[in-house]
């Protein structure tokens, strides 16, 4: 698809979108992807569908790992040709519109989709592949309950000409995909893991318990159980659906990112990208909008980890090295106003490390760590933390706006 094939109204909307985005960036108000898309959709509500038409599209959705997996998938798909993607994490329809408008004509698009908007974006973009990563509790004061979210997905997916790539280790995802799969939708199951089990003790189908035994899980009463995965994570690599092992020199840390890489490779494979060709592209991804970025400052080597919810914190503890660690928590609008989730996280993996706490809600964190028997020091800011720790490594784990605050102090590191 190229610009000149767009209807006049869509052309105008696209051009306005680019203009507004440029203005937003130039005035330092934002990265431009949301405002541009919002203006464009006001001028032409069908613009997303028009911009999507003619492209082969992959959608990536789930509670955690969307932005990273989208970046990895776009890198893998790049083997085939130009890929449009919302790489800045603007994951609602305004962001998709803006990303596609900005990219111009591309044969492919990889779009990160907020889990609440999956149906809407499916309707508008008719994707070829949809990746379902995981579902767990997030932003308790306003997000949908996990089971309700899974039910929305379950009803949105059937009856479409698409292929699913879904996490076999998350009962909620398997159930959410189940209706479409039962109706004949093809699926690639990836053993992408699930470290946080607290949202999947109960079968979403019948309410009976889900029993776990090693990697296996099954409802004790009904038919819901772990499907046999086609792709698995193994050591420092992944095993694909033909049984071939691919070693990946991933710069991104943690098992969860090897699982994200497996999902990205499985998605790309469905578009015809041989895993062996995509693997070197994944190795080039070093950080995503500041996530996992490593920054040198005053003789300290600082790594930034973003964690927005309990499942994300458990993954961060798996990635973090045994070095001084700064935790920062805010509870502003984008974070959710409720800090109760701190008690859904077991902070004991941090015992024995030097732990510093900061952020708007450092006191909530302080009480939580005390209850968890994790000694800590309270600091007023990221800068103060830097002055307290000796030269060397520092891990920073922060939730959304706390992460952005620290990124701003580091000159908006990417």
């Amino acid at each position, binding site marked *: 698809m190229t610009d000149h094939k767009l209807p006049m109204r869509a052309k105008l909307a696209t051009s306005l979108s680019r203009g507004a985005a440029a203005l937003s960036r130039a005035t330092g108000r934002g990265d431009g992807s949301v405002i541009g898309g919002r203006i464009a959709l006001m001028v032409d509500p069908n613009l997303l569908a028009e911009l999507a038409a003619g492209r082969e599209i992959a959608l990536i959705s789930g509670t955690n790992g969307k932005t990273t997996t989208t970046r990895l998938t776009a890198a893998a798909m790049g083997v085939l040709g130009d890929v449009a993607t919302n790489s800045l994490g603007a994951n609602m329809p305004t962001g998709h519109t803006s990303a596609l408008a900005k990219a111009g004509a591309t044969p492919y698009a990889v779009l990160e989709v907020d889990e609440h908007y999956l149906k809407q974006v499916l309707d508008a973009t008719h994707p070829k592949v949809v990746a379902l990563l995981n579902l767990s509790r997030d932003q308790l004061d306003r997000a949908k309950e996990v089971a309700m979210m899974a039910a929305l997905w379950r009803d949105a997916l059937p009856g479409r000409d698409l292929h699913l790539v879904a996490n076999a280790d998350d009962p909620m995802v398997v159930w959410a995909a189940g209706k479409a799969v039962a109706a004949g939708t093809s699926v690639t199951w990836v053993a992408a893991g699930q470290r946080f089990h607290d949202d999947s003790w109960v079968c979403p189908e019948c309410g009976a318990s889900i029993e776990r035994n090693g990697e296996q899980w099954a409802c004790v009463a009904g038919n819901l159980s772990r499907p046999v995965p086609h792709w698995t994570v193994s050591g420092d690599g992944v095993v694909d659906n033909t049984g071939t092992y691919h070693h990946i020199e991933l710069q991104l840390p943690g098992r969860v990112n090897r699982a994200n890489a497996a999902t990205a490779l499985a998605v790309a494979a469905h578009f015809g990208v041989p895993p062996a060709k995509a693997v070197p592209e994944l190795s080039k991804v070093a950080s995503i909008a500041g996530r996992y970025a490593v920054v040198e400052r005053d003789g300290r080597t600082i790594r930034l980890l973003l964690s927005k919810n309990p499942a994300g914190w458990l993954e961060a503890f798996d990635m973090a090295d045994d070095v001084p660690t700064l935790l920062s928590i805010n509870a502003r609008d984008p974070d959710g106003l*409720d800090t109760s989730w701190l*008690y859904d996280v077991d902070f004991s993996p941090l015992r024995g490390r030097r732990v510093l706490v900061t952020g708007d809600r450092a006191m909530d964190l302080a009480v939580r760590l005390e209850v968890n028997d994790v000694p800590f020091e309270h600091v007023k800011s990221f800068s103060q933390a830097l002055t307290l720790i000796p030269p060397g490594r520092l891990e920073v784990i922060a939730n959304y706006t706390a992460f952005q605050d620290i990124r701003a102090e580091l000159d908006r590191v990417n």
Partner: protein
Amino acid sequence: MSTESRLRLIWLYPDLLSTYGDRGNLLILARRADLRGLPVECAEVRADQAVPADGDVYLIGGGEDGPQALAAQRLIADGGLRRAVDRGATIFSVCAGYQLLGNSFYAKGAKCAGLGLLDLDSDRGETRAVGELAGEVDPALGLPTLTGFENHGGRTHLGPGVRPLARVTAGIGNDGRSEGAWHGRILGTYSHGPALARNPGIADLLLRWATGMTMEPIDDRWPTRLRDERLAAVLKS
């Protein structure tokens, strides 16, 4: 306290009612008992298990409508919690757990029978109550200001058999005037999730009810700073 002289803390139905960090209350009670040298035993009882009647403190957390209705049905059918109350056990209940201890509540649009352990009835409000909650606690309990975060669609009407836990100064609680309820050794609040993190005084009250012992002060520097910060934030808004 039971004959083995261990304080038995029982967290009911974490598989159904644990949406908002409710585990925190169990951890906080256990820690505060431990710091007073009280031997503690914690048990988590899932909805497919029998509720033991020999616990000292029972905790019931918050959750969505479906799990709440299921939890109430199972607790009524089980009968263990009522027997425990007859023995003089202490109960701390939060949000959905608080509602289901009453005579009736609404879940998914239908009126459901509660356990009738607290004389109160809950229905749905016109708006959802989400945000900071604060109130002056019933003077009979001798506790400082209540502080918490609430997130519920219910409104609760107290009968003559209970006293309000607090008079609301910020937020909604039961109905914008009163918040929570208590009777005997049963206490309920809309201050959801890990409510005891911000209210160590309530934690110690529960321990006192359960043991009959005075709780010596402990180092509450961090909970005090958290309380001060949250109450100041409520005043500012």
